[in-house]
């Protein structure tokens, strides 16, 4: 993806304006946010706000629907102490775990290069990382003093702690900071993720492992697009505490699927230029602005809310309020949405279910049509046909709804005669 310098800087200027001016520093886009974004690629609101580096937590607070995110200092301390333990002794433990997982012969202590990656600013650090990723080709400069001599010619081990990678996302650059990247003697790379959830008897929380794999996939993607020739290994290394101790254990996790999925989803993201171009000129997402102005600014970008957003997006509570107020069926879950064919609002569903053979169909059509304009149709796939003008009596979805309502009423009627159904009030 190449851009002429002119359009790049124009976009950058435009995004800064949206953020509230050049003085407001952008919030960096991390791998967690990218993975979440890739999980809901239809959400233009999230794509734009993340891409522009808007402080969504502050924005949500200003909108009156703050996100309940936060990290306990206990978890923070535990995570840090575990990471420090894994990285101790020049990463000897990490290399040992990696070799045990891949079957390679571990190098002697001291043979692992630990290039210094510190530099001013993210682009400087990205440049240093790029040099360090190819130690054999970049000469001895990166392998500062440790892996000299014979090994340097054929390439040796190197560990990059907190390197920085750049990834182009929907037209803006995101800087990513993996926990560690290992460079193998054959020049290939392994992404290492250090997490503090335990691996208990060889198995761990599937949701957490999945999240770690998606995160590693984002890093792998960024490595592939770093411009350095080399191969990213298909297995990422997940390092976790073993059982109830704080001894590290490591497992290779296959990230090919996640990498392919993330790549596809990121490619599907609407280009930020397009989203930004559709906005009124004066739109600004500066949390310091008054709430009504912010609300209309946020409303001007369509969102694709789903309950899954609640755990990943700071704005989710705001979007949920809006979805509920509009009576959108998405607020009840993606599966519910999927069952309902063309219906988009709860009112439309209920009137279709409750009013057989009457004018209910027309009303449903009108309401769902209205809702489609309000932004419910920004989603992917089935959301494309949301207008649903034909919610008349012949429509299979409406017919099924009427049957469901009739069966439900019949069963509840039968149940009520011999037992109390609704407990209180």
């Amino acid at each position, binding site marked *: 993806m190449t851009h002429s310098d002119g359009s790049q800087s124009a976009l950058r200027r435009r995004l800064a304006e949206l953020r509230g001016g050049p003085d407001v520093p952008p919030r960096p886009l991390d791998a967690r946010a990218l993975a979440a974004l890739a999980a809901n690629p239809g959400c233009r609101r999230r794509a734009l706000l993340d891409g522009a580096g808007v402080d969504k937590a502050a924005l949500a607070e200003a909108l009156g*629907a703050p996100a*309940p995110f*936060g*990290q*306990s*200092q*206990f*978890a923070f*301390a*535990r*995570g840090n*102490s575990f990471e420090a333990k894994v990285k101790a002794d020049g990463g000897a433990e990490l290399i040992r*775990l990696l*070799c*045990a997982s891949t079957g390679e012969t571990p190098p002697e202590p001291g043979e692992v290069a630990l290039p210094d990656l510190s530099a001013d600013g993210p682009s400087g650090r990205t440049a240093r990382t790029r040099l360090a990723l190819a130690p054999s080709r970049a000469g001895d400069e990166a392998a500062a003093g440790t892996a000299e001599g014979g090994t340097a010619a054929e390439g040796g081990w190197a560990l990059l702690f907190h390197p920085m990678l750049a990834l182009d996302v929907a037209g803006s650059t995101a800087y990513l900071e993996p926990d560690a990247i290992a460079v193998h003697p054959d020049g290939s790379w392994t992404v290492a993720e250090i997490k503090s959830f*335990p691996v*208990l*008897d*060889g198995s761990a929380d599937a949701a957490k492992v999945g999240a770690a794999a998606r995160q590693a996939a984002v890093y792998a993607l960024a490595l592939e697009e770093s411009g350095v020739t080399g191969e990213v290994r298909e297995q990422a290394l997940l390092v976790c*505490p073993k*059982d*109830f*101790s*704080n*001894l590290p*254990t490591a497992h290779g996790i296959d990230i090919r699927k996640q990498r392919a999925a993330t790549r596809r989803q990121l490619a599907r993201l609407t280009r930020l230029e397009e989203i930004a171009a559709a906005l009124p000129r004066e739109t600004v997402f500066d949390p310091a602005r008054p709430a009504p102005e912010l609300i209309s600014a946020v409303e001007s970008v369509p969102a694709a809310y789903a*309950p899954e957003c*609640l755990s990943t997006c700071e704005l989710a509570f705001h979007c949920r309020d809006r979805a*509920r107020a509009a009576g959108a*069926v998405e*607020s*009840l*879950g993606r*599966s*519910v949405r999927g069952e*309902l064919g063309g219906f988009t609002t*709860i*009112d439309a569903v*209920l009137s279709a*279910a409750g009013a057989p053979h009457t004018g209910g169909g027309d009303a449903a059509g009108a309401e769902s049509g209205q809702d489609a304009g309000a932004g419910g149709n920004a989603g992917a796939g089935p959301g494309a046909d949301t207008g649903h003008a034909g919610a008349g009596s012949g429509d299979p979805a409406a*017919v*099924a*709804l*009427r*049957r*469901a309502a009739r*069966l*439900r009423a*019949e*069963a*509840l009627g*039968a*149940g*009520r005669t011999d*037992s*109390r*159904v609704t*407990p*209180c*009030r």
Partner: protein
Amino acid sequence: MSALARMEAAAAGLAQPRATVRHRRLAERPLVFVPLTTAGEAGAPLGAMAGTERESPVLLVVPQPRDRDLRFAFLARLAGVVLPHLESAQDEIEWEERKETDPETGKKETVQVELCVDAPQLIVPNGPGADFVRLLGRSMRFRRTAEEDPEGPYPAPPGVPLLGRWLTLYGERARVPGSSLLLSMTELLSRHWATGQSALEDQHLGALLAWIDPPEGLSGGEAALRAEVGRDSAGQLLCPPAGPATDPAFDNRLLAPAIDRFDARLPGAEDEVRELVASQLRPAWDAVWRGIDLLRTLPEGERVTERFKRDRWSYTAHRDRVRSGEPPQPRRDDAVTAAAKLAQREREQARLEAQEALDDPLVMAERRFAGEAFAGEVTAVEMAYSEGKRAMPRPLVTLSTDDRPHLGGGVKVHRALVEGARQSAEFVRYETEGDGDGDADAPRAGDGTGTGTGDATLVTLRLTSGMGRGKEPAPGTVPEKGERLCWTLFEHTPRGGPELPEVEDTPWTHGGPPAEPAPAGVPAPRGTTAPGAAPTAPPQPPLPDPVTSEDLL
């Protein structure tokens, strides 16, 4: 259909029923257990509230969760509260007959075996709470007391390993569909009520209760929102999460400073931590009891007792294993046990789905909607006999139904008779109302949603069983004209798959027979061996986890 119920709830601002009877057993005296854990630390409990009396819960607190001695003291007191409850039903037994194969003669013989009359119940607030029970069980069952292993470092207080084994049983049993030994309140409530929010949001116990039973003057949605995000002036949640994780704002602003004061040995600091932990536990404790009240308003489903009997078998078998001195449950199941567990869960899932439908017209309505069952009125009964050496009654019954079952040639259907008996029938043909002879392949057969115009279909079935052994059907087994029947396309007692081999006969495709366990008393060098060598080492099931000197836990 449950989606429709959610929408009705959203529109009404009040949860709507998803069941007309209670599909799980609620013991008369369940032990409610509300655990809290320290963020980021596996198996480092912060505190718990437990007990069978709603007015007088036992509060257990670890003032410094990283201190091993304090944690052991907590586990010992927990064992003091929970073990008596779990062991309370061990001695009251009844005799059951069971067929067993005699190992010498190979004949099947009937033997008398003990079965505990009751199995005590544990109730936790939510799914993660049930997982935490499993985790606690895992962290305790391999510990050794000073009596068992006088040499070992960090001996566990008595009762702790035993509690670990019981909690492991309960945690594992909770994965069997329809089991009632360990229940999570959110799962129970969301099984019986549909709220106007998503299933994801239903996992918040406070919000779920707010939908089902909102406080005066608030709609379910408003009350749920308040339960989720409402905070007091100090920034603390009005309705703290029901554990086991705590709210980060609580950790950072209140708990961490209090623990620091405890570490500095300031007077009164321990009481302060206790009060803080209690402030987080009490709302969840009360919420669980409120949930129990709500569930008690529903009458128990007819087949719940039958499923509970399986729980009693499981409880009795565990009691026997403990009494005969068997080692704790292994870290990982062997191939045969794992396969057996999976098969059991699949079987129980099918059984649960069938039984819930038979117990509850509302659940049956969902199956009817899905085309897996149909109800209708008998319009004609025609006596017929099979053409065999011995003619058996095979009456033809025609029903008029509004449902749209997925019937086709030779499909079997089932219905429940009185006193647990069952009757099967096979589909013969569709008939269109009025003209009498329709075709077996009715035009609507393939269309599950049907045309739904409300017009009835006539379905003719041939009864094939449930009529006794005689030449004439036993009285009352053949329906009469005008009777209303409900037939299902699914079996009422699903059969399991083929039998699995004994553990000793595990095929090589599944790793072969497990290695002999290492003799007890071998020192545990697990912490020092390279992990690369670990998989090839023989399993040493009863050894405790490695403990290092810098181990925080």
